[in-house]
């Protein structure tokens, strides 16, 4: 695949939007309070970068996503594998999981604050809730749709259940698992910023809310762009990881998991 050329193509739209922003501000097509000019945003960016406050907010958010994401994985992955391999169990879980799946994490914030205050715990829980289901359902799908013939081949070669899981089911479900992780990461990042908008004293979401109250649209724009750029970077990282872990799928699946 022509990687460099495609990256370049991908940058056309951001470049056009950037130019439109620059031109519109230069010719005063809109009120500079509603859309601050690029130079002003750049100056603000420089300022909060050099005093370390942007890095502090960003690190806080990334840390929350990371911890919450790991916790969600540790919950969702074993449960999905269990239900995927022992399908009789799923009758006990189906209704509960289906009901929980429809609850947006942000809707639980009032209760979380009531129970856990406004410390780290409720924010991590928001991330866990947002991340759990994509990981869970994709892993379940991967395990459950593993080709039964492969399992039979492994059985007739004399593999035990554990070996079958490790050598057949896990590799076969890995593409789905990776899709789940990738979607989960995207969801958790979005949910977290939402949570920080409501109850936090640090993080990118908080930074945006704080800027709103200080009437600083330039900082709001920086916050929004930071979220987008970070999300893209994390996704690219994941994509690279996917290619390393499941090279036999590369080519037929370079786009899957884009959420």
């Amino acid at each position: 695949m022509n990687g460099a050329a495609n990256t370049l193509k991908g940058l056309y739209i951001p470049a056009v939007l950037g130019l439109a922003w620059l031109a519109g501000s230069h010719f005063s097509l809109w009120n500079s309070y509603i859309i601050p000019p690029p130079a002003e945003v750049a100056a603000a960016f420089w300022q909060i970068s050099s005093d370390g406050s942007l890095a502090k907010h960003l690190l806080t958010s990334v840390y929350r996503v990371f911890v919450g994401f790991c916790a969600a994985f540790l919950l969702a992955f074993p449960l999905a594998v269990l239900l995927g391999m022992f399908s009789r169990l799923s009758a006990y879980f189906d209704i509960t999981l289906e009901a929980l799946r429809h609850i947006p994490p942000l809707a639980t914030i009032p209760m979380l604050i009531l129970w856990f205050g406004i410390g780290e715990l409720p924010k991590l829980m928001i991330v866990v809730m947002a991340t759990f289901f994509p990981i869970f359902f994709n892993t379940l799908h991967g395990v459950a749709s593993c080709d039964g013939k492969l399992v039979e081949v492994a059985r007739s070669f004399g593999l035990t259940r554990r070996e079958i899981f490790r050598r057949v089911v896990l590799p076969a479900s890995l593409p789905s698992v990776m899709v789940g992780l990738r979607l989960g990461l995207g969801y958790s990042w979005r949910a977290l910023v939402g949570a920080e908008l409501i109850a936090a004293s640090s993080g990118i979401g908080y930074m945006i809310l704080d800027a709103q109250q200080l009437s600083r649209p330039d900082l709001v724009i920086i916050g929004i762009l930071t979220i987008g750029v970070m999300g893209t970077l994390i996704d690219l990282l994941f994509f690279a990881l996917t290619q390393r872990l499941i090279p036999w799928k590369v080519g037929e699946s370079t786009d899957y998991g884009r959420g």
Partner: protein
Amino acid sequence: MLSVDIRCDLPDFSLDLQFQVERDILVLFGPSGCGKTTTLRSIAGLVKPDAGRIILDGKVFFDAAAGIFAPPRERQIGYMFQDFALFPHMNVQKNIWYGVKQHGEAAQEMYEKLLGLLKIGHLGARRVGQLSGGEKQRVALARALMAEPKLLLLDEPLSSLDKATRLELQAELMEMQKLWKIPFVLVTHDPDEAETMGGKVLFLEQGRQVAAKR
């Protein structure tokens, strides 16, 4: 010698079948849904018949009356499928070595012999996704034989191949059977294939043998 006498109660009919095969090729021939695959799965130990006995070279795999059911791993049986069932995350070499328990000189010799006989020596490092249908089935055959099975089951092994490749592989399968001298039980719904391959052919319909050719 493989001796099979089984009854399986399937949803629509009851599979009721008796046959014996020496170190030769036995073909189970019949329309889809007639119980051919269930027979193979019973022999492999992947399903448990409701009654009867399965014995290979004096070893009892299944005996409903005596309550014996040997799990698949104790049966030393090779199994080949229509859609190859190769492991997509492994290359050709790893697939072929998959069922080998003892890696040693003897196994290495066997590996080289199989690659030579099946003309797949140049494919070792390839991924499964890069193989043609005929190549895949040769790899699957090599994998099955590498595990030194006492019996090989073939479930429509050539059905998804084009005609030329199918004829080529029919000849190769027969040659491998002569070299390995183990019973092959082959399932097919293709009358020509049954005709060519079968030292012995059982015609099945609705779970029952309706005719035989020796």
